């Protein structure tokens, strides 16, 4: 039987990946952020999951405005790094777990989550930067990956509650998979940031800290937060945090926080990282 052993919430800022790809992680600007990633990477080395289900969003890479799935799941054998406008990142090809991915796709749909099933999916920084944050720079990624892509670009994204419920359904379905696998679930994006408009650069540290706290203690309360509150308080792109609620939903009622790191700035963003284990 497959089981979910942990959840990881992390920002997926492209500049974090670029700092690694260009060997800048020891620079004055980046060192404090990457120093804080150390213990999480150590935890990951010990945990050695078989599969990572990564809840992320595409940024005009695999999906454009031509069609906009609210929830999509990648079922392919492999996923290539996407060309986002400056050539693909030089990171390993992402290897899928088609059997578990199809088990999820079929059972999510039968449980009334109408997933879009994707066989050909290039993955952008939204998915590869979290892998880089947690696994550093290996020759091959040390686990299989199932991409779960959430639309947060075209307003409105799914609600926080819907994401949380998706996570709960993912947990039930993973538990019904008849193979002995350990699984971690990533929720990515955030934290407070706004890339666009005259308000670009807005950061709200108290909001972020409260979110990290309540992700542990009061996730149900967080699911009641309307979109306008995310946009107003955490910036227009801070709404990505609904994807962290999908991760939290997959962990069950109670969790313990294994690790937390928070740093401002990473590019135009407040970068957060949390590692949670179900109890």
């Amino acid at each position, binding site marked *: 039987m497959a089981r979910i052993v942990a959840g990881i919430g992390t920002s997926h800022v492209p*500049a974090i990946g670029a700092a690694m790809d260009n060997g800048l992680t020891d620079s004055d600007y980046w060192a404090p952020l990457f120093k804080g990633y150390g213990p999480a990477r150590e935890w990951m080395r010990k945990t050695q999951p078989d599969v990572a289900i990564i809840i992320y969003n595409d*940024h*005009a*890479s695999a999906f*454009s*405005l*031509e069609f906009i799935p609210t929830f999509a799941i990648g079922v392919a054998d492999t996923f290539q790094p*996407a*060309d*986002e*406008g*400056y*050539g693909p990142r030089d990171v390993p090809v992402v290897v899928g777990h088609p059997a578990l991915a199809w088990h999820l796709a079929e059972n999510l749909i039968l449980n009334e989550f109408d997933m879009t099933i994707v066989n050909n999916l290039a993955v952008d920084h939204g998915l590869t930067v979290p892998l880089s944050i947690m696994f550093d720079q290996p020759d091959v990624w040390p686990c299989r990956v199932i991409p779960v892509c959430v639309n947060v*670009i*075209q*307003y*409105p994204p799914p609600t926080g509650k819907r994401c949380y419920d998706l996570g709960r359904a993912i947990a039930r379905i993973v538990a019904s998979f008849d193979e002995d696998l350990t699984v971690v679930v990533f929720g990515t994006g955030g934290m*407070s*940031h*706004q*890339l*666009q*408009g*005259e*308000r*670009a*650069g*807005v*950061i*709200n*540290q108290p*909001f972020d800290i409260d979110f990290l706290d309540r992700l542990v203690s009061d996730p149900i309360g967080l699911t009641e937060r*309307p*979109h*306008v509150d995310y*946009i*107003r*308080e955490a910036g*227009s792109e801070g709404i990505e945090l609904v994807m962290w609620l999908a991760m939290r939903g997959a962990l069950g009622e109670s969790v313990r926080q294994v690790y937390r790191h928070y740093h*401002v*700035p990473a*590019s*135009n963003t*407040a970068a957060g990282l949390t590692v949670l284990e179900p109890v």
Partner: protein
Amino acid sequence: MKDYSDIPGTYVFDGEHSRKGYRLNMFCMSLNEEANRELFIQDESAYLDGRGLTPAQKRAVLDRDYLELLKLGGNIYYTFKIAMLDRKSMQYVGGQMSGMTEEAFKEMMANGGRAIEGNRRVGES
């Protein structure tokens, strides 16, 4: 009146915005392909012609006016692809949209970002 209309300096990419910017954003999307990037660089104006952009959208692309592009329906993840071609950073674009130099914008971010206080609602101080 939408519940987010009173948030200052923020262009929520809703249906109305998306309709207005579809052609503009799909032009930006085309820049994901190396061959198209080369064609665009060779003759920007010719590349834009026939892609259904309004004259104002075309002008804003040629001028690299990122705030105007937002106002004309652009989405930042799409329009930033133009900045990538120019090797401009998100701090440069953020600064341009908010009337600051790239250096000043970077400094603001290093000091904790733009304050949320005073920036929640139009007219708030």
